[in-house]
């Protein structure tokens, strides 16, 4: 009999109130202080549209940040209080998004192209970004991330990261334009600016997600998924911004929509995965690998390494893409595609290599844990279920069989059972590696949950 009143944690050194929340709060506070300082400076010294946007946008950022925090923490609460927190989070995020759209439309786009053009551009970008998020989430073949967190990551990329960037880049660009010789030197400085500031802003979202929701941030695969989702969110808003801007510039010449369409193709089709998604996926990979490393030094090095690759990839595109010759002939269309392939392709290939290796690593360990769980005889995972659970295709087949027998409800029930079983295997894996805060009772709760769903499925 266990005589202690405190449930034992898997990692004896960890406490049940992890210090990483304090780090997350400190980081968030730092971001807010930086935003306040830079926006006030912008407003005082630049007296421009971005200056005003920065000041009014502050409240939107604060609302989104607070709403996100409440949202992700809501799922750790019991059912009775969860609903209250979800409503609170939804209201805050809704207000923040509304305010931000207002800022963007009224102060940035309305003066140039008008809110109708901005809305049309957003509608163009929505399906492609949604497709990107769908693909990115599907990449995690063994243990898919919850949609709510993937969407939170994308929202952070779209709203908070872009806000951070507007202010940082306005200051950097303005200083550089006042101090440097126009030409390659200035271009290089601006490429450093985009690489450093944009990747730091996006990476911060990945880092905060990891600190606050470590239970849903299992390994390198999850890191790549969240990182790419943040990148896609950022790319979404950046695309709207560029499309609207170019429309307003070229509409007088009669080809505003053509200019916007070219931007859309470049950013939402050609650059959907070859761009922000790739760069930020590296940051996620670094955080994901650090998640499973033991030594503090190695953890720090992995995170820094992720940031360095992301910044370098982004920098190389911004600084050297123009070196690649693009002729103003039909062959130029081929060259545009080749340029993306040559400049960003190696980075995308590298992140895919990490992803595939991570999926294999994760899959082997989940299989190992499923076998061990089946051997315990608790009945949460049966020996004959192991090969099905280990294969995404066999899992799909099992769900489709349930669909044909019992319809959509049957499909969803089997899907929940499979998810719960994979959650259990993942929990066991983290516990075996002593990289989890949850007490041992949490594992038994997962087991009970599987048993409960199994009875439900059988019924």
């Amino acid at each position, binding site marked *: 009999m266990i005589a202690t009143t405190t449930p034992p944690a898997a990692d004896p050194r960890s406490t049940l109130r992890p210090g990483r929340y304090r780090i997350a709060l400190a980081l968030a506070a730092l971001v807010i202080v930086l935003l306040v300082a830079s926006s006030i400076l912008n407003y005082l010294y630049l007296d421009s549209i971005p200056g005003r946007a920065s000041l009014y946008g502050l409240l939107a950022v604060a609302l989104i940040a607070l709403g996100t925090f409440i949202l992700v923490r809501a799922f750790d609460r019991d059912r009775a209080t969860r609903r209250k927190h979800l409503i609170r989070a939804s209201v805050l995020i809704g207000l923040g998004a509304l305010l931000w759209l207002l800022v963007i439309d009224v102060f940035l786009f309305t*003066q*140039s192209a008008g809110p109708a053009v901005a809305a049309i551009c957003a509608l163009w970008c929505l399906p492609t970004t949604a497709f990107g998020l769908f693909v990115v989430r599907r990449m995690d073949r063994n243990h898919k991330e919850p949609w709510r967190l993937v969407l939170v990551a994308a929202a952070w990329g779209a709203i908070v990261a872009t806000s951070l960037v507007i202010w940082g880049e306005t200051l950097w660009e303005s200083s550089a*334009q*006042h101090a*440097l*010789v*126009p*030409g*390659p*030197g*200035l*271009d*290089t*400085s601006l*490429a*450093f600016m985009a690489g450093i500031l944009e990747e730091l802003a996006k990476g911060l979202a990945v880092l905060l997600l990891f600190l606050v929701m470590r239970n849903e941030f299992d390994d*390198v695969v999850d890191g790549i998924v969240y990182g790419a989702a943040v990148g896609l969110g950022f790319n979404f808003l950046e695309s709207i911004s560029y499309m609207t801007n170019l429309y*307003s*510039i070229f509409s*007088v*010449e009669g080809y505003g929509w053509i200019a916007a369409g070219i931007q859309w193709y470049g950013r939402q089709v050609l650059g959907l995965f070859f761009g922000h998604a790739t760069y930020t996926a*590296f940051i996620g*990979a*670094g955080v994901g*690998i650090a998640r*499973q*490393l033991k030594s503090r030094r*190695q953890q720090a*090095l*992995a995170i*820094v*390494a*992720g940031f*360095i*690759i992301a*910044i*370098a*990839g982004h*920098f*190389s595109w911004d*600084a050297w893409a123009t070196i690649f010759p693009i002729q103003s002939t039909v062959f130029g269309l081929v060259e545009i595609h080749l340029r993306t392939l040559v400049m960003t392709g190696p980075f995308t290939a*590298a992140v895919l*290599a*990490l992803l595939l*290796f*991570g999926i*294999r*690593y994760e899959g*082997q*360990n989940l299989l*190992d844990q499923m076998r061990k769980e089946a051997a315990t005889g608790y009945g949460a995972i049966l020996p004959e279920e192991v090969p099905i659970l280990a294969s995404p295709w066999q899992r799909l087949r099992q769900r489709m069989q349930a669909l044909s027998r019992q319809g959509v409800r049957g499909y969803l029930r089997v899907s929940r059972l499979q998810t719960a079983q994979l959650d259990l295997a993942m929990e066991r894996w983290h516990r*075996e*590696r002593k990289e989890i805060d949850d007490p041992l009772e949490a594992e038994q709760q997962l087991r009970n949950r599987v048993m409960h769903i199994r009875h439900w499925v059988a019924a």
Partner: protein
Amino acid sequence: MSAVTYDQLRVLYRTLLVFATVGVVILAIGLVEFAYFEPLGQSSGTRAHIAGVYEYNPSTQQTVGPDRSEFSRTEVFAAVIDWSSLPSNLIVDARWYDSFGSVEGHVGPGRAADLAQQSIVPVEVPEGHRFVLPGRYTFVVERLKDDVPVEVLGRRFVVVDRS
């Protein structure tokens, strides 16, 4: 945990470090490029006097009206430089850059004394366009060394409205 899976995590970690090393090399090349085009110690202390930026009449090739920093996109404008404010043997040029960083009108390069007759530097409407593109324009007077601009001797910013 088996030794095999530990090695797999190590492989991931080391692969990431190898990629990061490549990243460091890329960033280092970027710094070298920046240092080449923005060499240290190039400040000569010389300042070019830009008399102003004015509306420009292409038919008379003369400026009209007062010094301004904001124009509508249907207006053509030009900067006026006092080349005599620079040492006569200094190799210089003057350029207009649009918000995309493209050169939209220039004078030089040449010795400051030789450019005395070209004190008006108009901005050019891009080929195939009816008007200048809106956005922020930068006018610079640059000192050149080995055909590479190394120092800005004078600078003006002008905004062209979208409407």
